[in-house]
């Protein structure tokens, strides 16, 4: 129960050796002149300042032929078709749910793009429309895939697969979407005893590894049985590990999370977030990741 109080520590100075890792990348901050050559086209994240192409956001310069864009490092989620996302229902409307997915506009989940319980494929009737709130209500969390992107950048989601749908008991961790590595699969049953959904939108869901699932419920049945303490410990540790990795800007994917989890095992769960413990864990994790890459 002791309270841990400390003085602030100044941020570490970036050493020149770590800067060398950025070789070959053109990084800019707002106001940096990218080029004074007038032959280029102005893309996202840039503006013309006295005939010079200037960056308006901090990020990496990307060039496609004559078009110059700056991809920002700190950003909201820009969805693309096929991305796995985790979102929260904010509104139930006619034939659609509004979903908060950390993008600039609320995403929509159409009633016609969900699997209804029972698994049968049929036209959505008026009764289905009336009982929409029985399936998903405000505040519920879902995992889904981006089906299409509207002209204004809003996303349309779908959950037409048994792996998507309503999420039950577990913990949501919010990180920057730039930190989630795009991979073949974003669903992992980690060997340490819990499962993880790495949403491309920076919403990460940790939950106890499910046993044999009941197909009949179609993903809308949530167990309210207490989660055993051992699973809880693993999930809490993973949660803190994710925050540690995010605080040190390490890409999140199954291997990095697992290595971080293993490096943290010598510490108590609640100590992981202390700055000095954090540094130690991150150092070990980085080392193992480097060894693995060879």
């Amino acid at each position, binding site marked *: *129960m*002791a*309270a*841990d*109080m*400390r*003085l*602030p*520590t*100044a*941020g570490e100075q970036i050493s020149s050796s770590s800067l060398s890792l950025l070789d070959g990348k053109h990084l800019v901050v707002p106001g940096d002149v990218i080029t004074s050559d007038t032959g280029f086209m102005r893309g996202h994240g840039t503006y013309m300042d006295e005939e010079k192409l200037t960056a308006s956001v901090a990020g990496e310069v990307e060039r496609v032929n004559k078009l110059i864009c700056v991809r920002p490092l700190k950003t909201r989620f820009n969805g693309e078709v096929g991305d796995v996302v985790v979102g*929260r229902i*904010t509104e139930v409307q006619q034939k659609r749910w509004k979903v908060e997915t950390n993008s600039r506009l609320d995403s929509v989940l159409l009633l016609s793009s969900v699997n209804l319980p029972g698994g049968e494929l049929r036209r959505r009737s008026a009764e289905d429309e009336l009982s929409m709130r029985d399936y998903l209500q*405000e*505040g*519920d*969390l879902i995992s889904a895939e981006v089906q299409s992107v509207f002209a204004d950048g809003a996303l349309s989601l779908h959950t037409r697969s048994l792996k998507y749908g309503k*999420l*039950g*008991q*577990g*913990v*949501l961790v919010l990180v920057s979407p730039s930190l989630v590595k795009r991979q073949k699969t974003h669903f992992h049953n980690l060997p340490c005893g819990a499962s993880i959904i790495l949403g491309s939108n920076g919403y990460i869901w940790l939950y106890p590894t499910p046993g044999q699932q009941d197909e009949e419920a179609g993903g809308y049945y*949530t167990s*309210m049985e*207490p*989660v055993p*303490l051992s699973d*809880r*410990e693993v999930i*809490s*540790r993973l*949660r*803190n590990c994710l925050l540690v990795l995010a605080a040190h800007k390490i890409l999140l994917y199954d291997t990095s999370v697992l290595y971080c989890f293993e490096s943290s095992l010598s510490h*108590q*769960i*609640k100590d*992981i*977030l*202390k700055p000095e413990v954090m540094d130690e864990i991150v150092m070990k994790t980085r080392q193992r990741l480097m060894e693995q890459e060879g």
Partner: protein
Amino acid sequence: MASVQVSEAEKVYIMHGVRDDLRVDGRGCEDYRHMVIETDVVSNTDGSAKVSLGHSDILVGVKAEIGKPRALVPDEGYLEFFVDCSANATPEFEGRGGEELGIDLSNTLYKVFNNKHSIDLRSLCICPGEHCWVLYVDVLLLQCDGNLFDAISIAIKAALFNTRIPKVHISEDAEGGKEIELSDDPYDCVRLNVENVPCIVTLCKVGQRHVVDATLQEKACSVASLLLAVTHKGMVTCVRKMGGGSLDPESISEMTETGKRVGKALHAPLMDLLKKEEGLGKNRQKVGFLR
């Protein structure tokens, strides 16, 4: 107050975790998140402190001004509280959104701190009935991540510890008129005795148990919470129940016991830290707002 949405299943998960004494972030029911405290961060105040608790970020500044004592207590100075909810903390505070919370917070702070058990108000008196020091305590919420009261009270205690009030000399001229002269020397000042300044402990009832230092998610699972102001001796100077739910008498006494125990344990590390920071003197590397 800033609130978050939590689904039913998440609530069940959090409540079962509290029952098992393992909260979502691995803490037990009576653990605080780690705190980062820095004093003397704003140069144009007489005393200031910045406290971060989790992602809650609080800045407190204390300004001393000469004012007239209140008629009922002519030999005491007094404190004024103002809480500013910055729209940086949450978009809800934009415009007048934070006003209600700000007034609520400052009223509670007034009750907790402005009494002679917390601070020796007599030491703020300059000339009975005519002049006294008024301490304007301004609290700025930079980020909200639950448990505002506890973080604010710790920040206030640290800021009061840091407060230096210039010494005054009263001289009387021939006609009996009094003249107040402020000392020019910045080191010629008086300090406040903050030994008895209480810390606030907020206990949230989650399920059958109660937790200290609730995060916003845990707050969303609780219907009622109890606020206790506890001094270093374990004396409770203020109790307030918050939230729409009800508490049965048995749990109130249980929560009071826990609050006393936890509150008492907060003071020693805080004072140690403040003294350590002061001991560093001018060599201390100031961090401030850039980290």
